[in-house]
């Protein structure tokens, strides 16, 4: 399997640990990633609130630069923007013409835009992953957090159930985690308001964190660097404000999968997570010593 890899701005900066773990996991699973030459901004929040044409042209530029038949995007926001652009440019000829004029070259329709979670959960056979496991996550209690952009809107993004996605759950179960049910798997974290309206983010992320803790989670598993940073960076302040003493680290699904596949915590960038992950890593270490009995 070979994909054009679109890290997006975050994975080259604040989300470096996501990039690290993605590359490690893909390498082990035999997924070849070829970084898109000259990729640019996905257009995220700012572009589509400022200029519609720009919001299409930016992702169209990146898609057109792709060298492979399909793009793997690990960031949910990037994924959503690229996907949204592709769907609209395919359906709307006049928009496409406008965008092509802006790009000054034809748009490359037909490149599949995929989120990395979709690729790992749906393209790699479970048995294959299981065969490569170096241990289990030792029954680590996790909640899977998909965020608001990964599966919505249905017409654009749904590779899984829009309201009740399960692909990450299955992947984590495969790695030997105990996946807990919780009602907030697709609720927004506040996203880019992180900078402009922290009050909103504190409110929304606060609800997520208390819900995860109420469910008994030892980790919130995420698939988006934006979600991760809101859940991680702001966690101490938010929970303190709510008078909650427990903490729950927000880790990438690739980090946990990486641990199960035998990569070291260091190689997976665990150090860059603010909330203390030592007990989590200890749990996993214990699991790794136990013989591999991951459930199917």
């Amino acid at each position, binding site marked *: 399997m070979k994909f054009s890899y679109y890290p997006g701005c975050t994975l080259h900066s604040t989300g470096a640990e996501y990039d690290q773990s993605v590359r490690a996991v893909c390498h082990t699973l035999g997924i070849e990633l070829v970084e898109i030459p000259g990729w640019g901004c996905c257009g995220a929040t700012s572009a589509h609130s400022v200029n519609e044409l720009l919001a299409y042209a930016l992702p169209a530029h990146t898609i057109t630069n792709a060298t492979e038949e399909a793009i793997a995007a690990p960031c949910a926001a990037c994924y959503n923007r690229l996907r949204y652009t592709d769907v609209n440019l395919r359906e709307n000829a006049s928009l496409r013409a406008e965008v092509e004029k802006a790009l000054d070259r034809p748009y490359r329709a037909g490149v599949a835009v995929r989120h990395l979670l979709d690729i790992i959960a749906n393209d790699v056979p479970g048995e294959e992953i299981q065969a490569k496991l170096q241990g289990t996550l030792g029954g680590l209690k996790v909640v899977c957090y998909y965020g608001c952009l990964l599966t919505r809107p*249905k017409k654009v993004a749904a590779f899984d159930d829009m*309201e*009740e996605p399960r692909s990450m759950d299955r992947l984590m179960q495969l790695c030997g985690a105990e996946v807990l049910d919780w*009602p*907030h798997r697709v*609720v927004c974290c506040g996203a880019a308001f992180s900078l402009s309206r922290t009050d909103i983010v504190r409110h929304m992320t606060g609800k997520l964190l208390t819900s995860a803790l109420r469910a008994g989670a030892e980790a919130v598993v995420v698939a988006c660097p934006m979600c991760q940073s809101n859940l991680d960076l702001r966690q101490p302040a938010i929970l303190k404000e709510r008078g909650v003493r427990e903490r729950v680290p927000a880790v990438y699904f690739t980090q946990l999968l990486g641990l199960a596949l035998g990569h070291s915590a260091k190689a997976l960038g665990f150090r860059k997570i603010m909330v203390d992950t030592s007990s989590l890593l200890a749990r996993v270490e214990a699991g790794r010593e136990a013989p591999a009995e991951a459930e199917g």
Partner: protein
Amino acid sequence: MARIGVFVCWCGANIASTVDVESVAEAASRLPGVAFATDYKYMCSDPGQKAILEAAQEHRLDGLVVAACSPRMHEPTFRQVAAEAGINPFRMQMANIREHCSWVHADREEATAKALDAIRMMVARVAQSEPLEPIKVPVTRRALVIGGGVAGIQAALDVADGGVETILVERTPSIGGKMAGLDETFPTLDCSQCILTPKMVDASRSEFIKLYTYCEVEKVDGSVGNFKVTLRKKAKYVNHELCNGCGDCFHKCPYKKIPSEFDYGVGNRTAIYVPFPQAVPNKPVIDRETCVFFKTGKCRACEKVCLRNAIDFEQEDEFEEIDVGAIIVATGYDILEPAEMAEFRYGAIPDVITGLQFERMSSASGPTEGKIVRPSDGEEPKVVVFVHCVGSRDENYKEYCSKICCMYNAKHAIILKHRIHDAQAYLFYIDVRAGGKGYEEFWKRACVEEGAEYLRGRVSRLYDENGKVIVEGQDTLSGEQVEVVADLVVLATAMVPAKGTEEMARILGVSTDKDGFFNEAHPKLRPVDTATGGIFLAGACQAPKDIPESVAQGSAAAAKALGLLTKEEITREPTVAVVDPFICTGCWNCVTVCPFGAPEKSEITMTIDGRKVTRPVSEINEGKCEGCGLCVASCPGNCIDQRGFSDDQVYAELGGYLERLRAALTHE
């Protein structure tokens, strides 16, 4: 050469103000095959018709073209005139120069030319048309009603009232349908059972109605006037001839914890059961799936206690073939399974219920005897959230409006207030649709008099926290996100076609719409007909409906059925497909594509070179053909023609259209 008369109508000013009718008539008189042409103010009026009759005689006409309005309007009128004039009615065609011409154009010159085009086309077509005779089919004077809900019951009662034998088939153990389980009904708050049960009893007692409960339609053959229907009478394991409905059996049944279908799981039933105390027939059946005797071979408690020896474990499904002339389909609705919509966490949170479950709870004859409680702990709820449009008006689930939810949510809010005076109802709505008589006043009453809190916005998510249900949603009037901490949440889930509707459609050979409801023949003018002759629709199987609408449709379908069944024989349009057996290869593509089952597999034996050769061919059952033309189009060998729309006629018609172009090319 044909002798066709052309009659151009002014339709008052409707046509004449845009089309130069006089010059059109003058030009028409010079067309090949036209023996006479004239114009008149109102062709459909008595003098107009007389003019046609006189011209037909004077000019020995053998075909008519009436250039006037849509054939939907007056085709029967002018066919009648043709018949009176001794001209085959199918050699009369209407050129629609009103809807297709004067009403949609402003340019007088262009409209006039187009009117003449239309006439030229019809003249060419009439010149090519064969005289046709209507097809006559004798009628079996018996009706079948499928589905014993209120629509089906009403339809059966009305057909029976016309003195026609009616067979009412219901697949559950009792008639009554969804309505039998409702509490009070909007907007009058009269008790549902009080108004329905007398009708149920009437249906069971009518000398003209044969009631088949626990029975399903297996197969339908034949066509309008003469259907052959196979019924599967499911084994009840109770001999209803012997049973007197004393109820000893189900009181003794040791298995009492089976979720009751009638109560939507709010209450329980036994393995041998009557679905509800007022059931008709009020005699039990044994549910083979849950009866322990069928699982283990032990128990027979009901058999032991039955003094009339009515229990019969040996019973098997029986099949019965009946002949009927008309079928009324009233198979009703189900609700969209709310568990499919994960955001409402139905099933995961016990205090999230559906509107139908609320009905059973608030019904005095229901499992809680009218007491509204939280399923989780049996406590009285003080804060109840009602969610409108759960799965309806939602592009992710069902795009249509389920129509009745606004009203029953208001009703539930009122009932809540009546039963628990200090309770508070919150209703999340998109907008309130209250279009029926007394409906607007009713929801206003809930809002103003009963203090229900209406929040204009949708619910995004439910979750449980500390024994309460947190309802997150939006109030679009204030622009705020709201959060209600509720004791009970009631979901107004979308109405969907009853389970098995698709299969029923296949059996009946009628079509369904994109949402799976049965398709009516015309959304406005033939709302209770299907495209298949002799099959009619009543109630929510056609679209979401409330009780008055369902009843009205039941009566309407009955009237349509009676109209058919009171005739000795019916005549059908002769514009049916016809196969040329000499060139038919018997590939039976037509059999595959026909939605009405009209082409039938047949054989032809020919003597070729002294040798008898038998070949498969297709043959059209004229009684079933609806004249849609699908078989004509799908026939690879062009062996099927449609009477009245033959290739020759269509070709000629096209030629008539092209004439103006030809004239332009040749400067004539």
